[in-house]
């Protein structure tokens, strides 16, 4: 890992700290209130706030996780830095696609 990847990984970690706390609070709120899927979707559909919140969350998680996986791959497999980097770009894009697809499913009406 070089300084650029280190900065990105730490920045995305710092960004995710409040996002994780809000996400957990939302889970507690939804379950405590006994909200159904329909109740939740009624609040999230068309909401720019929730789209932004989870969109940023997905982007941060995809960047953070792929940098970590890159380190694991380069330490545990006989891969060059370049190949480990390419593999984890694919992994990061996959995470981002899956995450954004889920976000789209709950915010797009």
């Amino acid at each position, binding site marked *: *890992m*070089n*300084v*650029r*990847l*280190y*900065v990105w990984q*730490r920045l995305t970690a710092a960004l995710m700290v409040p996002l994780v706390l809000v996400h957990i609070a939302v889970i507690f709120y939804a379950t405590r209130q006994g909200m159904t899927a329909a109740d939740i979707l009624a609040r999230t559909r068309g909401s720019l706030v929730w789209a932004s919140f989870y969109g940023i969350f997905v982007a941060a998680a995809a960047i953070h996780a792929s940098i970590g996986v890159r*380190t694991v791959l*380069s*330490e*545990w497999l006989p891969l060059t*830095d370049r190949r480990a980097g390419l593999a984890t770009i694919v992994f990061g894009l996959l995470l981002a696609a899956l995450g954004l697809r889920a976000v789209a499913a709950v915010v797009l009406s």
Partner: protein
Amino acid sequence: MPETPLELSVSLWRGTEVGHYETYVVPQRDSQTVLDVVTFVQRHIDPSLSYRFACRVGVCGSCAMTVNGRPRWTCRTLVSKVAGGGHVEIGPLENLAVIKDLTTDMEQFFRKWQQAKGVFTPTKTRQDAIGQIRPDNPARIVADAGIECINCGVCYAACDTVRWSSGYLGPAALTRAWTLVNDERDGGNAARLQAVAASGGCHACHSHQSCQELCPQALNPTASIAGLKRRTVAAYLKGEIKA
């Protein structure tokens, strides 16, 4: 009836990268060091045994070996502290190529010192007055914390990241770099921070702290590396170094 002298069973690595542990019986003595045991075998049992030592008093850093699974400076390690059940297993340092028996090739260890720009870069000539550095200067205190490294290679052999990533500079080279980063007389920091911020540099450290736990000089390379991480991030964000 004469008292039977106490004996110690010692297994020594024989061979190169491929080899085996061979067991010898040596007399056990008071205040006996691990290096004493190796020396006894070489002088009285098998003169073909290869090992490295020089000062025998913990200054030169030559005699580090793996003792019962842990890297240690053998000249200052008492057998009584490490010989559980009257047996000691002594091998070459890990993470380094074995030349023969207990002797490792330190070339990559010192090459990484060079890669980390561990050489002092003077900013004055002999015609200039000698720079005055106060011992209580904060930067000097940080530099002093890592200056007593004896290059024994114990931290390098103990480091998991070196084991997993052969390109990693390692705790000793990075501690040396951190010492020079905090040396006000040195003028090589731009190149040094660039070198330690690259792939295989300080950011590869996982902070397992084996180096700190096993350093015979009680230095804290993990703290030095953390200092380099902070300093290189600041330099990167200011555009002073590139990724």
